[in-house]
């Protein structure tokens, strides 16, 4: 292989290692290693971009995000996402005002249904965004979750 091709290939591999974008080139079932770069990004739009390679999220009522209006505890906020969209490859959760907005990602196989849930930490009142990738397009639903601090709760 000539030198130019070799360098180009190496650069592509290096670029592919850090971000989710690499997943777009790979077949659905091959999951890259934990996307360190995406989890480190502190800005919401840059975070979304690092995952999908773009910021085009289509808000839709077909994505149902269940999150409390007022979180009882910012240490453990129950979040559930489900959608009627088909061929869902991934569901990502972003918390706009968290130090790093990307909180978690769920990569679904063909057998997995697009229904997930987890519990997250929220540092302050923030918009929570559920992004669903279906048939190559990214859809979303969001909700503002209020987080209050202070009291006698101990």
């Amino acid at each position, binding site marked *: 292989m000539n030198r130019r091709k070799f360098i180009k290939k190496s650069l592509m591999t290096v670029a592919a290692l850090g971000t989710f974008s690499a997943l777009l080139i790979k077949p659905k079932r091959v999951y890259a290693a934990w996307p360190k770069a995406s989890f480190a990004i502190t800005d919401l739009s840059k975070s979304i971009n690092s995952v999908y390679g773009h910021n085009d999220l289509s808000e839709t009522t077909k994505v149902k995000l269940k999150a*409390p*209006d*007022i*979180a*009882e*505890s910012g*240490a*453990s*906020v*129950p979040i*559930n996402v489900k959608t009627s969209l088909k061929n869902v490859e991934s569901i990502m959760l972003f918390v706009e005002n968290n130090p790093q907005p990307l909180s978690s990602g769920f990569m679904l196989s063909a057998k997995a249904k697009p229904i997930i849930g987890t*519990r997250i930490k929220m540092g302050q009142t923030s918009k929570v965004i559920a992004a669903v990738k279906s048939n190559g397009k990214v859809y979303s639903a969001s909700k503002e979750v209020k987080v*209050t*601090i*202070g*009291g*006698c*709760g*101990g």
Partner: protein
Amino acid sequence: MNKIFFILLFFSLGISASPEEDLDVFRDHFKSRFPNTGFSDYKNGVYSVDPSSREQWESIEEFPPYEINIEQGEELFNAPFKNGNKYASCFENKGIGIRQNYPYFDEDTNQVMTLELAINKCRKKNGEKPLSYYKGGPMADISAYMAYTSRGNIINIEIPDNEKAFEAYEDGKKLYFSKKGQLNFSCADCHIWQSGTKLRADITSPGIGHSTHFPVYRSGIGRLVTLHERFAGCLNRIRAKPYKAQKDEYRNLEYFITYMSNGLEINGPGYRK
């Protein structure tokens, strides 16, 4: 009007209401304060009076983190001491399904015996070092397991016809109603008069039902908290010096508040914010 009646009843000159009368007054107060809460639901504390936090709690209860502690507690409970004995030998019914019987007034030693104190008493009897009542750990895990095996059992503390027992109850009651700390609050301020209202970001839980669900997994710190550690936490918050866990003051307080939870079922360990 209700408040005045309450105050008169608890601080009436020379006329001491019986615990049974106290309990009636307590229950009536909460019935009128929270008309939509069924009696048995008070075991769920703040969730029996606040629908928004209740929904989140129900979600967590689908798989609550304290299940880890129950499992750990079961292992600890069944592990033999160095001398070969087990915790089961110290308790009736081998320690299973007995939490609702605590605390009780021990007429031999003339003091209130709590479950946690009994656990350490068992350890001492078998040549083991006592476990700490603070910061979760094995004591809270064992307590959680024993609470778990007692779920559904109804609390029915009976105060024996014994002057010392009545004194312990009255001592606990007095502590409950006494103003303390720099913030000058009493337990009654938050859990009777202002129960169900906002205390900054918190909603205060009603005063009946506190004893049913301890130890409690606190999500903010991510671990179990025993009842006496919680008492200390409350006193710290009102900027008062807390008493030591399992000393007279808190055991008597636990005696009083558990009596006030008579008729409710054990549902520990619990989960709170």
